């Protein structure tokens, strides 16, 4: 498929661009690994003292944190511009992608690689490896789970940032949503009541990038797989639809940028 060849070419350019600053790239990669490791120590301290939170223990934490880290890392590496989509829209940078013969959304989000994402991605695997429930078939499930979680995370980012087409700069909203997403994803799901859980599966799908993929990694069940696949499909579809609607608005000129 020519789209795949095109994506590979873009990713290659991203990598080359990052490699122009080799030291920076490595510093960010290792820095992020250290960052995550030190942060995780807090949970080690917590669970050392308090054993578990309604049955959720350190082992669960390793896996959940690992999935979230690798998922965020994957999005950062392959689709780094999902984090800057709002900015790209407000600065009119979308015109560049619109004037080229490739699908706009795909081209836009894949045109950047965030170096620290490499660190996040690697760290997730390390976290899973030391979780105490490592197994080789578990690793395969981990990889699938990470990919699906990445789809949900990326789609969520696209959804929120597409609001820029209607309400202008969404920087704060995006930061808020992303932070909430990642925070809720790594906190023990056992903390939340039914109402909260509902929110965590829909409005802020943190459960789909934390608990559910972690569950799936521990043990294969058709339900968790269906939930992951369904969630990924729904959010992806939603993201694409909302973006296209916003794009139409942008093309009719009723969105923000006007340069006569």
């Amino acid at each position, binding site marked *: 498929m020519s789209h795949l060849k095109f994506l590979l070419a873009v990713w290659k*350019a991203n990598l080359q661009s990052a490699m122009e600053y080799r030291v920076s790239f490595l510093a960010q990669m290792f820095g992020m690994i250290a960052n995550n490791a030190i942060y995780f120590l807090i949970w080690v301290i917590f669970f050392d003292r308090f054993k578990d939170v309604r049955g959720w223990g350190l082992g669960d934490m390793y896996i959940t944190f690992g999935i979230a880290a690798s998922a965020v890392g994957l999005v950062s590496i392959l689709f780094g511009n999902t984090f800057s989509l709002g900015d790209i829209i407000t600065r009119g940078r979308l015109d560049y992608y*619109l004037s*080229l*013969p490739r699908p706009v959304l795909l081209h836009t989000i894949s045109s950047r690689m965030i170096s620290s994402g490499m660190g996040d991605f690697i760290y997730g695997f390390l976290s899973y490896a030391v979780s105490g429930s490592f197994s080789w078939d578990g690793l395969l499930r981990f990889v699938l789970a990470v990919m699906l979680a990445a789809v949900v995370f990326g789609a969520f980012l696209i959804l929120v940032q597409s609001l820029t087409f209607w309400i202008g700069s969404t920087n704060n909203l995006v930061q808020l949503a992303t932070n909430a997403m990642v925070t809720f994803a790594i906190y023990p799901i056992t903390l939340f009541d039914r109402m909260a859980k509902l929110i965590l599966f829909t409005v802020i799908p943190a459960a789909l990038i934390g608990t559910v993929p972690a569950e799936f990694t521990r043990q294969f069940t058709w339900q968790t797989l269906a939930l992951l696949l369904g969630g990924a499909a729904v959010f992806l579809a939603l993201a694409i639809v909302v973006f296209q609607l916003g794009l139409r608005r942008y093309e*009719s*000129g009723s969105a923000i940028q006007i340069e006569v």
Partner: protein
Amino acid sequence: MAAITVRELRKTFQTKHKAAGLRGSFRSLFRPQYATVEAVRGISFEMEPGELLGFIGPNGAGKSTTIKMLTGILHPTAGEADVLGYCPWRERQKLAHHIGTVFGQRPQLWYHLPAMDTFTLFGKIYDLDDAETRRRIAFLAEAFEIQDLLDTPVRKLSLGQRMRCEVAASLLHRPRLLLLDEPSIGLDVVAKQHIRDAIRTMSREEGVGVLLTSHDAGDLEALCHRVIIVHHGQIVYQDKVSNLKRKFLTRKTVEVRYAEEVAKDFHLEGMQTLKTGRYGVKLEFDTQRTPADAVLARLSAAGTLVDITISDPPLEEVIARIYESAASEVDGQ
């Protein structure tokens, strides 16, 4: 068949109006006020394949908006356009395969990479095979004299060098039409010359049509056969550049130096004295009223000529005058 046909293209924007200060912010939140901006008010024109067409006008005239509509990035409020057989806003991706665009203020080259890498990527974007891409790059590198620049990271290039690479990149996929939006903005005289020559040569050799917007009249003079002047979203004048100069350039300026000192009230029949110095005079005359040989005769009779320069007023002045007459028409409405 025309390369571009535009009929009664219109574009109206609604902009939100916000008063200054905190109170203004609140008001705009609850009761937003909109102002209507008619950026393009019924533009119609045609462009032949391979033609070099200039679109000139002051800021806010509607040039960029028109280009955006022709590339399909913006949908018009009314009107039709046909670009290379496609309706731009309905078949944007298909059209994108056949046009190249250079927006002076929006770079296409990846900032941190050598231009070569962007060229290679473009090859993949436009679905060219590797051998074809390489051949094309070699050819363009020679045409634009950028062979030595290709391996330098773009951020290290001067603006002039970058623009040459940008225009070369836009021609990689052999487009039939090249759209340039303010390509010479920020460039020095030498760089401008370079770019214009390269574009002209490419157009001649490959038959690429060039539609260029600018508010630099020098671009027009150097590059275009035909020019369309827009003001306030409408076409105010369109004609061949040569005709433009001939019709509107009825005045010429003469600067002379004499061996003898010049009288303070130096005056010649049929000519207007603009400035007098100790030995020199600057005069203006209307070619339609005073024929050139009469001017020369009178000048040499007035003293011993040491030096003489006769020049046309710059195209800018011509265009400025056209704007003024257009503006007065608009005001008069």
